[in-house]
């Protein structure tokens, strides 16, 4: 809990090493417009997860079509119940295979993986900016921030009203979070990109932490605005991943300190080190 804002809400320093766990599908629902929401029972991984971390899910058979796992962020977890959830977009064969997994089926994954969101010590007011599926990894962060007594402004962007409606499954933790919605076509909320209200928020001042996830050009813009406003900003970057545990160098990100691995040195990075 928040004691005068001194406790770190979530921190890279406490991240556990990943394990392989076989979990069970508790629920897997189609949300329409190509989105899915899966709940997995996996007590060991659920007990170690931190906001911003992901799991590397196996979607295929050993000699089958899909030999690579799929990295997917955890959008909610409950250590006591031994559950975690993933909000996913069906993009290609791998996520389509995932959407076909039914209740009671076994799924195996590596987790928890990655550097979690790490808000600055004593953070009091946070701006979270999510674009589409990028809203998923921000969800456990806003939950943790709210629990720690941090004031949170969330900006959520989607292409249109249907995509925005799908994102509503992430609202199970939305207690006391201020939310601004934007759509590319104006069918809900602000007409335009998240960058417009984000700029207004930052100009109004008072923020000491910005966290963003979504399309990379969007993250780059948000990071630039945060830098201008002098506010510490974290981004969460996506790269194609083979091993998912830091061994193969398929997922590198260019930083001011050379190439870093998105899987274990990220996916959450201090935005100021990224060479965009």
């Amino acid at each position, binding site marked *: 809990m928040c004691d005068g804002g001194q406790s770190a809400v979530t921190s890279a320093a406490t991240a556990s*090493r*990943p*394990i*392989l*766990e*076989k979990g069970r599908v508790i629920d897997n629902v189609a949300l329409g417009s190509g989105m899915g929401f899966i709940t997995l029972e996996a007590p*060991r991984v659920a007990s170690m997860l931190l906001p911003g971390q992901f799991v590397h899910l*196996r979607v*295929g058979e*050993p*000699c*089958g*079509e*899909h*030999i*690579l*796992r799929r990295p997917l962020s955890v959008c909610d977890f409950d250590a006591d119940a031994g559950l975690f959830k993933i909000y996913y977009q069906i993009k290609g064969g*791998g996520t389509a295979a995932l959407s076909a997994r039914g209740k009671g089926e076994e799924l*195996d994954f*590596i987790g928890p993986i990655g550097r979690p969101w790490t808000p600055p010590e004593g953070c009091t007011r946070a701006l979270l900016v999510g674009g589409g599926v990028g809203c998923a990894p921000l969800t456990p962060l806003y939950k943790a921030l709210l629990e720690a007594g941090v004031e949170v402004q969330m900006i959520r962007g989607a292409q249109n009203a249907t995509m925005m409606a799908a994102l509503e499954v992430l609202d199970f933790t939305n207690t006391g979070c201020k939310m601004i919605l934007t759509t590319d076509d104006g069918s809900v909320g602000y007409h335009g990109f998240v960058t417009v209200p984000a700029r207004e928020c930052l100009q109004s001042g008072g923020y000491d932490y910005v966290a963003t996830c979504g399309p990379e050009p969007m993250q780059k813009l948000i990071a630039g605005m945060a830098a201008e406003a002098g506010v510490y900003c974290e981004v969460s970057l996506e790269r*194609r*991943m*083979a*091993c*998912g*545990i*830091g*061994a*193969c*160098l*398929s*997922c*590198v990100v260019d930083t001011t300190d050379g*190439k870093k691995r998105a899987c*274990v040195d990220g996916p959450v990075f201090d935005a100021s080190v990224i060479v965009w």
Partner: protein
Amino acid sequence: MVNVGMNSLVELAVDLGGLKMKNPFTVASGTFASGREYADLWAATMDTADCDGLATKLAFNPDKPLSILGALTTKGVSHKSWPGNTGIRITETASGMLNSIGLQNPGVEDFCTKDISWFGSQGVPVIVNVSGHSVDEYRRVVERLEREGAVTAYEINISCPNVDCGGMSFGIDPRAAAEVTQACRALTKRPLIIKLTPNVTDITEIARACEAAGASGLSLINTVAGMAIDIRARKPLFDRKMAGLSGPAIKPIALWAVHRVYGAVKLPILGMGGITNAEDVFEFMLAGATAVAVGSQNFTDPLSVPRLIVEFAELCEREGVKNIDELIGGLE
């Protein structure tokens, strides 16, 4: 039920050109870094119910996870640091994957500082995979590694399709292959394994050249040259256009290469390419491999190597194999 760690009923030990392995399993270079990440994951996972008693069967020691391997093979090490390739580095293909990592590594000096003591702590023979842009660069890496006791053997990579200068260009020309082999041979008494590419018309020609130049063994195959296209951008997916194909998709190519090379030279072979299960290992050995390396399968299942060691021993037992030497090149 075999107990591979304690007293397997099957004799699993092999000799790969002077490299003594307690079982025929190593990992394919570049898929396993220097082993820390997998060692950690194995140590954290092996005793759980999801591992079907693997820990007991392997007499797994969580302080020395890699000691279950016949040998560890490292990521490619070059003289100076290499940045690797720009742009997208992997993509999945039907039952396989393409990679264009480009041998990113911090150079041999950094490698020695960071990894040598780690190897020492693991109690496992270590094969260091060596890369270079020129004969001189290969030579300098081996020269430096000769000063390190924890290095057991070398795997000289003359077959990487993912670098412009050097790499595969040495592996497609018998004279250049012999020159690199000779230069390294002159520097070391350690087992010297030359890693060959399948991207040639006649792999046996290269194999013979390496044998004549003093190689202790041959390792094959490196990845198969391939390409992927982004139709929206109408551009190659990879910045270097070409990438290397690995995984189950290349197993038949690899088996055929091993079989042909086995018939052409006396050198022991480290076989690899698409190995996913114990039957695959059996096939590679029948085709002529003395030992095998597991590569892309580590990505699909990070516990595949421990599983394979146990499953292969069980398969041998079922097949009535007493000593796996009898399998090597044992095609009727």
